């Protein structure tokens, strides 16, 4: 069966510090990978998605970047965090095949507080 791991679960970072959140998926090949952000009391906002190694699409202009160095690894980064980067970050994957490909499977999330 497929599993998704995301870490760290929580972190508190000072403004201006770098960020690295990592996500790996097991039990599937060539998944679509996603990073979502959920601000307090709000819905999910898609930040990045990837359909293959080295292929990253950004949905919104922001202070963050994403990379996919391996087929089942997705990394969210920032060189200098802003207060507005605080939130709940969710990694997710889907099978690149309709209609099953439209179902997204989420990790447990990472709480980021920028102070």
């Amino acid at each position, binding site marked *: 069966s497929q599993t998704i791991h995301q870490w760290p679960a929580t972190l508190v970072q000072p403004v201006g510090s770098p960020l690295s959140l990592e996500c790996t998926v097991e039990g599937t090949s060539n998944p679509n990978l996603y990073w979502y952000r959920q601000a307090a009391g709000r*819905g999910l906002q898609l930040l990045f998605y990837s359909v293959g190694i080295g292929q990253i699409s950004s949905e919104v202009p922001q202070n963050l970047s994403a990379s996919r160095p391996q087929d089942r690894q997705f990394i969210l980064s920032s060189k200098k965090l802003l207060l507005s980067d605080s939130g709940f970050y969710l990694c997710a994957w889907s099978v690149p095949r309709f209609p099953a490909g439209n179902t997204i499977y989420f990790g447990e999330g990472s709480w980021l507080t920028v102070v």
Partner: protein
Amino acid sequence: SQQGEEDPQALSIQEGENATMNCSYKTSINNLQWYRQNSGRGLVHLILIRSNEREKHSGRLRVTLDTSKKSSSLLITASRAADTASYFCATPRRGGSQGNLIFGKGTKLSVKP
């Protein structure tokens, strides 16, 4: 414009009662999904209904889809305290890749024992 607007924003019921949540969307879709999120956790996929389906069941969950009204509803029957969570509907992003979804802001359901 945003797809998948749920209402109500919050719903509080007693255990054993039914809970109904609604979702409206604005553009044509080929499917709609409902997800659940326990506080501080990731989202869990509940059910997917295709545009050619009107109703779908999964255990105590019943989802309807009315493409003419661009709306969907999620009914949880005989609710339990463990059903307390936020529920989101999601629709495919037009022109997006497979799995690229737009989520609403969710309905926060509280089931009191």
